[in-house]
């Protein structure tokens, strides 16, 4: 028995490692050629008054004069040694530039997820535990409405009303905890409604299952039924969504970072695309890609651990 379990985990790891390699190679290849179509970084480095000779010199110095496939081959060869090259603009290792801003993004993602869970779990439990009352119905409709509001629109409205109209300052930038509030709320405002609705559905479903009836019949109070039986099962069912949301947060907070001037990966990405700093753009994509993939894998592993039936399901595209 334990051997089959070990075997299953080895296979799980092998498959995911292979997929990660495919992802990174695919991402590198796509971006490498896309970015080279996007512009010539030599002109940005040399400036508006550069002569043709200077451009040629810059291209030679940065290896931009070689055929694209040669540049690609040497980039991949360096990548295999975990060398992501240097920024064309600041001459610093591209990976450092990304790792420097990563904590800010992870902080934001973590805060967003925490707020999402803090709102969605109690709300979902409350909504799903009992038959609808007018208050529940109104909340459910509100959640449905909020589900359609993009996170960045929530962010803009929050900035407009809380920060500017009501003077609840400061709202922007990356400072102390007071600057965390609005970005956190924007992300949670976007993600929590979805999660709350799923938890509510799961709780409601669980409440009608046989084991709950059994628990009720054996004298468990409503509180115990909800928190001891229905909610844990509902949360298990919502793990997949929460995991996807966390992965989304890591890659999808670009716009939120932009709005709140949060000095994270999104900000770095926009800045380096503007200056055609290819190595940094690529490093951002690779780091974010790896991170998202890892998060998804961890969620998969968690689900596998919690619910071994899932491992049988391998027929998805």
């Amino acid at each position, binding site marked *: 028995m334990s051997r089959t379990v070990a075997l299953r985990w080895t296979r799980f790891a092998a498959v995911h490692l292979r997929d990660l390699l495919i992802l990174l190679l695919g991402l590198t290849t796509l971006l490498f050629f896309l970015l080279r179509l996007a512009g010539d970084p030599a002109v940005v480095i040399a400036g508006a*008054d550069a002569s043709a000779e200077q451009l040629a010199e810059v291209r030679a110095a940065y290896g931009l004069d070689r055929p694209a496939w040669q540049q690609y081959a040497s980039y991949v060869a360096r990548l295999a040694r975990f060398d992501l090259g240097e920024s064309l603009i600041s001459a610093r290792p591209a990976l450092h530039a990304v790792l420097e801003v990563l904590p800010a993004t992870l902080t934001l993602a973590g805060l967003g997820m925490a707020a999402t869970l803090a709102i969605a779990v109690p709300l979902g439990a409350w909504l799903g535990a009992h038959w609808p009352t007018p208050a529940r119905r109104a909340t459910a409709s509100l959640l449905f409405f909020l589900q359609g509001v993009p996170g960045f629109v929530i962010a803009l409205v929050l900035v407009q009303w809380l920060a500017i109209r009501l003077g609840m300052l*400061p709202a*922007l930038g*990356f400072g102390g905890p007071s600057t965390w509030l609005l970005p956190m709320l924007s992300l949670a405002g976007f993600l929590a409604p979805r999660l709350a609705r799923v938890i509510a559905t799961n709780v409601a479903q669980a409440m009608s299952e046989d084991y709950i009836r059994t628990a009720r019949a054996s004298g468990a109070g409503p509180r115990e039924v909800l928190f001891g039986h229905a909610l844990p099962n509902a949360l298990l069912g919502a793990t997949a969504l929460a995991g996807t949301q966390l992965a989304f947060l890591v890659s999808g907070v670009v716009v939120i970072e932009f709005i709140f001037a949060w000095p994270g990966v999104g900000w770095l990405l926009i800045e380096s695309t503007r200056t055609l700093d290819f190595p940094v753009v690529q490093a951002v994509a690779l780091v974010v890609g790896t991170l998202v993939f890892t998060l998804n894998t961890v969620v998969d592993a968690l689900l596998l651990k919690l619910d071994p039936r899932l491992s049988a399901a391998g027929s998805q595209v």
Partner: protein
Amino acid sequence: MHRAWQGRIAALALTCLLAAPATVAIAAGGGTLRYGITVVPPTYGNPYGGNGTPGTLIWYALFDALTRLDDEGHLAPALALRWEAVSPTEWHFELRPGVRFSNGRVADAEAVAATFEWLGSEAGRRTVIGNELRNVTRVEVRGPRTLAFHTGRPDAALPARLAAVLIVEPASWAELGPAGFAKQPVGTGPFALVDWGERDKRAVLRANPDSWRAPRLDRLEFRVMPDNAVRLQALVAGEIDLSDAAVDDLPYLRARGLRSASAPAMQVMSIALITGTGQPSPLADPRVRRALNHAVDKQVIADKLLGGLGRPAGQPASHVTVGYDPQLLPYRHDPALARRLLSEAGYADGFELDIDVVVTSAGGDGAIYQVVQQDLNDVGVRTTLHARTFGDWLRNYLSGAWKADAFGLSWNSAPYNDVTRPMEYFSCRKRNPFFCDPVLADRLETVNEEFDPERRAALLRELSRAYREAAPAIFLVETVDVFAMDAGVGGFKIANRVPVYEDLLWTRPSR
């Protein structure tokens, strides 16, 4: 002693404080000032990666050049006290005595020459600043405080050009290399770097009390806030004390007790009309180019979009730049005249005009371009705006391989406030020119050979008139730099688009 044409220009006050200066008793000095900026220079403390803002916003606090522009736009001594042209191709510069770098090393002729030596090296010539010095053939140490500059062609504007070349401490530079030095820059400026503060986006500088322009503040902090709205909010909230600002936000800021100041940006915003590539184009006809100039209502742009701080333009120089001729009025806004000129040139039905523009996130340029688009459409020139990335725009600019008929380009006389700089790129002297009039190019050459400041200014005014007639661009407006600040900021002046850091002071209790 020949003080190369400095201080002889029609002097118009650069800085105009919009709100009455605060009537606070000036404190003894010290304190910290927090300045919200959009971005740390991409090359950090390596001052050769650019010749304007955002880089100079921090570099001018850390470094000095041999010369500099004062707050009225005049060339003034910096590390060099005096200079003279001993022949058309040789200049002597006498350095300021007793200047030291922030690490204590002496800034003598040897040290300054080392900077120019590196800029002339293979790696140095690749930089934006090294590239500007391509006419300098040799820099020679003639004494502990005397340097000789040799140029290939005569260059009357050399002292002004050198205002863009910031001097680095040579031992650190040699030891650390450009990338290492960028992280730990050492210069002669009023402040020295403590920390780039990358994690919290806060570059901290401390006073360099031994600087020849010793500051009145203890500390200067640059807070990186890429977004305009963020900076203004932080200013209102008292998180920063100084920021640039958009004209449209000034009423809001004033209502909250903040002060503002503005200064000409030494630029004339324009749409360059491509005629020099040999492609047949309606724009080849000067009547068409003048018609486009008459079509655009520059006054309403200056009044409404620049809040009356900018002014309509009709010549290459802004009104504070050498070569500006106050007699030359902007093209009158006259759509009927524009239509008449177009039909005289055979384009009664107008034509298609594609314009490549770079729109910054601040959005002010985008608004102006859209007004221009509408004004051109109204006289029958069917105009399309294409937003390009800066890299894309620059590639076309350098190669001359434009797909569009025109593109956004400012006549930028910064960083040394000399109109020959933008005139050169609106001429055959630019590689892959987009506008080429051999007569104008020859006249430009003679201007640079004229070393008498009065005669040079007169030649430039004549050239300005010729450029106005030739209309290689749709002249739009002279743009302005606008700053907003806490009422506790004192001694605020703007020189070369950057606050004069040594004069800044904080008049509230120290933080």
